[in-house]
């Protein structure tokens, strides 16, 4: 906190009589608390309780019975859960790792004086605002056997017969990831670019005068100073890897034979296609736990208390 911020804080403390509670901030927070209590906290507690129950009679409102940890056991012994978990790790390369590197590269290129910087930045950001369902449909069409990509690969002589990308066990998940990279790169680029623009120029000048190599400048100046921006991207990427649903649902539906199933789509099938609400609730808490643990690890590893 800045000195003036601290001063302001002290002045405010002194101005109000400490024995008398200032209710104003609580009043401002009240509507938010009510909404969170009703539409987040209550459902969260409800899911937690449901995760130890089994719905005996038909329907979600049906009669329930306590089953202890059986639902958690059912999820963790489900081979499809583990397959989806493995696929989610692979998927996170499309959601986080690849667009992070591409976004970082582009941000550095654009930051180093290219004409039309702000329009370029806006153009590369466009996929972020395209509806995910539209993106899924467009990429399905491009990747179809008589689609644009197969035409391109045939035209340059890389393949002889069209590849059925979305129906292939090996290629269906990478196909979805291609679309995800398209959608995420601009997002991360903008966050990282904002971080780069905040970097002090004179540090680079000093390094240049000292004859430091470009790599050294990147490694010891850019990267450490970009850490908060990278951390935001990593946390967003982790959460969205666990949250992504329509990406897979629209393009492959998790198929063929679960080859592109990720945790989020498998969870949806357990809860809403097989109507196994108790197991679905346990599944949901396992997902929540993963998001929380992985985000905290990311924050701790970066050694950052910045966020």
């Amino acid at each position, binding site marked *: 906190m800045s000195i003036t911020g601290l001063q302001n804080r002290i002045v405010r403390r002194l101005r109000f009589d400490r024995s008398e509670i200032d209710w104003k901030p*609580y009043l401002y927070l009240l509507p938010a608390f009510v909404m969170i209590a009703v539409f987040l906290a209550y459902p*969260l507690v*409800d899911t937690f309780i449901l995760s130890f129950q089994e719905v005996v009679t038909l329907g*979600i409102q049906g009669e329930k019975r306590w089953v202890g940890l059986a639902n958690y056991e059912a999820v963790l012994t489900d081979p499809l859960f583990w397959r989806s978990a493995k696929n989610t790790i692979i998927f996170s390369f499309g959601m986080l790792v690849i667009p992070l590197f591409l976004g970082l590269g582009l941000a550095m290129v654009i930051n180093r004086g290219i004409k039309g910087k702000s329009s370029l930045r806006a153009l590369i950001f466009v996929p972020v*605002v395209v509806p995910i369902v539209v993106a899924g449909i467009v*990429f399905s069409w491009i990747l179809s056997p008589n689609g*644009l990509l197969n035409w391109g690969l045939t035209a340059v002589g890389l393949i002889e017969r069209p590849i059925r990308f979305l129906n292939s066990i090996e290629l269906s998940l990478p196909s979805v990831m291609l679309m995800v990279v398209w959608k995420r790169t601009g997002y991360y680029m903008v966050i990282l670019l904002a971080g780069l623009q905040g970097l002090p120029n004179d540090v680079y000048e000093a390094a240049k005068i000292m004859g430091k190599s470009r790599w050294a400048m990147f490694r010891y100046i850019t990267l450490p100073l970009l850490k908060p921006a990278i951390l935001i991207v990593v946390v967003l990427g982790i959460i969205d890897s666990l949250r992504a649903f329509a990406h897979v649902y629209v393009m492959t539906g998790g198929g063929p034979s679960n080859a592109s199933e990720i945790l989020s789509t498998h*969870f949806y099938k357990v809860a809403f296609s097989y109507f196994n609400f108790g197991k679905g609730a346990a599944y949901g808490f396992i997902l929540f736990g993963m998001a929380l643990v992985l985000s905290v690890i990311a924050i701790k590893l970066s050694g950052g208390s910045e966020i």
Partner: protein
Amino acid sequence: MSVADRLTGFLDTDQGGLTLAQVLRYIAVLIAVLFVLIPLYWMVATSLKDAAQIGVFPPNLVPDPATLEPYFEAWDTGPWGQYFINTVIVSSGATIGALAIATPAAYALARFDFPGSNPIYLLFMGLLMIPAQILLIPLYNLLANLGLVDTRLGLILVYSTFFLAFSVFLLHSFMTNLPESLEEAARIGGVPEWKIFGKVILPLVKPGLTATGMLIFVFTWNEFLFALTILQSEELYTISVGLQSFQGIHGATMYNQLFAMSTLATLPVVILFALFSDKFIEGIAGLEMQ
């Protein structure tokens, strides 16, 4: 970037010519731009083709002939106008709802020092980490009890809550950057509290509200999973659910019509982005400023 811009870019370098690094930089940017544009071009191009040009291999790279026929044909296959109206209602409602609740909350957290302010801020951060879909079952249950399943209001309330933490997070950063003096002066001058919030803070934080509101509008416009689960009657579908349902029914046969409607679904958000791209970028970049 226009050709003229690029030419001046080439000429206007300190060495007076092109270095290898610069050439590589332009190539990288060019590849990125092509990667971004090709799928969008292909969507629009396909939407302008007649049925005879769909599925032919090799594909016509340029529609020949180009026709708007798929737009009219597709429009008659379902209540598309209604889908658009629904999406506008839901997105606007959620944007207004989230901002109305998040703005006072962000104000309290950014401008007051009170017992519990730090834990409450951390709570909002924690809420951001909940993968929303895990609440599908109990939320569905709750909405059913309130009679709000299969209503636009139900979806608006859910979206407002989900974007609450995000909005507080962004608005907080806009509000902490405001100068302290105005508010202090007003307080010393005996201006009533609601007027300080309404007449001093709100006008100052308007750019932040616009940026946050744009992002919520676009994110809810594009949301799929909750719209799919909560809305069941066809006449309440949002545009994303309508598109997915059309694809499910007509499959690969009517891609020109599917893309005609996809183009229409994308156009409003892309236009909004084109008009306010600085606001969007400012909002997203605001995530980094935390």
